[in-house]
């Protein structure tokens, strides 16, 4: 557990919560990224621009952070294209079929004690952990 960073994790988490509260207080909306993102394309006309603006904020934040700090956030990811394509397809399709992801179900849904969100979070966390365990044993790591 040498990489455990509880303080920055809690501060960052509190900011994520603050964002969810702001979006509810100002626009009356759930801050579920998969829904906001797909709605930027597929929502009804008149319901798209605020979604695109939220996405723009998401993209701009780490870029602004990098300018202020003078260094980009740490980033380490697989470069296997087949793996990335499979993962992207699964995340895109799965979050829409399951009506949410880590933000919509994990933060917004759990905080209002939604039974659907509790089930979703338990399932996707379990599936994610199982996938990592299987991937490691297959790769022999």
């Amino acid at each position, binding site marked *: 557990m040498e*990489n*455990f960073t509880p303080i*920055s*994790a*809690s*501060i*960052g*988490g*509190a*900011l*994520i*919560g603050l964002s969810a*509260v702001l979006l*509810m207080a*100002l*626009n009356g*909306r*759930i*801050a579920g990224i*998969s829904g906001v*993102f797909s709605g930027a394309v597929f929502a009804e006309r008149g319901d798209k621009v*605020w979604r695109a*603006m*939220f996405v723009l904020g998401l*993209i*701009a*934040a*780490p870029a*602004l*952070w990098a300018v202020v700090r003078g260094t980009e956030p*740490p*980033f*380490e*990811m697989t470069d296997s294209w087949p793996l990335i394509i*499979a993962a*992207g*397809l*699964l*995340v*895109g*399709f*799965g*979050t*829409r*079929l*399951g009506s949410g992801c880590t*933000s919509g179900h*994990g933060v917004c849904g*759990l905080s*209002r004690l939604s*039974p*659907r969100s509790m*089930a*979703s979070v338990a399932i*996707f966390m*379990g599936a994610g952990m199982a*996938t*990592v*365990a299987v991937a*490691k044993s297959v790769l022999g790591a």
Partner: protein
Amino acid sequence: MGRNIAALFAGLVFGLGLTISEMVNPAKVLAFLDLFGNWDPSLSFVMGGALIVTAIGYRLVWTRDRPVFEERFQVPGNRQVDTRLAIGAVLFGVGWGLVGLCPGPAISALTFGGAPVFLFLSAMAVGIGIFEGFDRIIARPNPV
């Protein structure tokens, strides 16, 4: 106008939270999912911090009649756990575990994640498009 600026600001705060908590780093997320390996519990503190603020904040916000820029609060009323929800969560969880990216961090990493993040976002958009097609053809049969 107001609601678009509000959304931009909320997006910035969300992205800042993802950046400070290092959730924009797939390796950090995979270290959380690696429960039986060199486990990094940081993600649970991100969730915990977010949940405390949201649980209290939502309750305060909902004492008001309506949001500032809209007519009403739009909160999902469905509380029924169904097959679609479960299968969707499994597929999402597997995809998340394969590379360590979920939608928020994937979008936030666009400016510094290079080609892998661009590829992931493209595949994610295709996955969403496939769902929209599936949803229109299979799940909601044409009444005609």
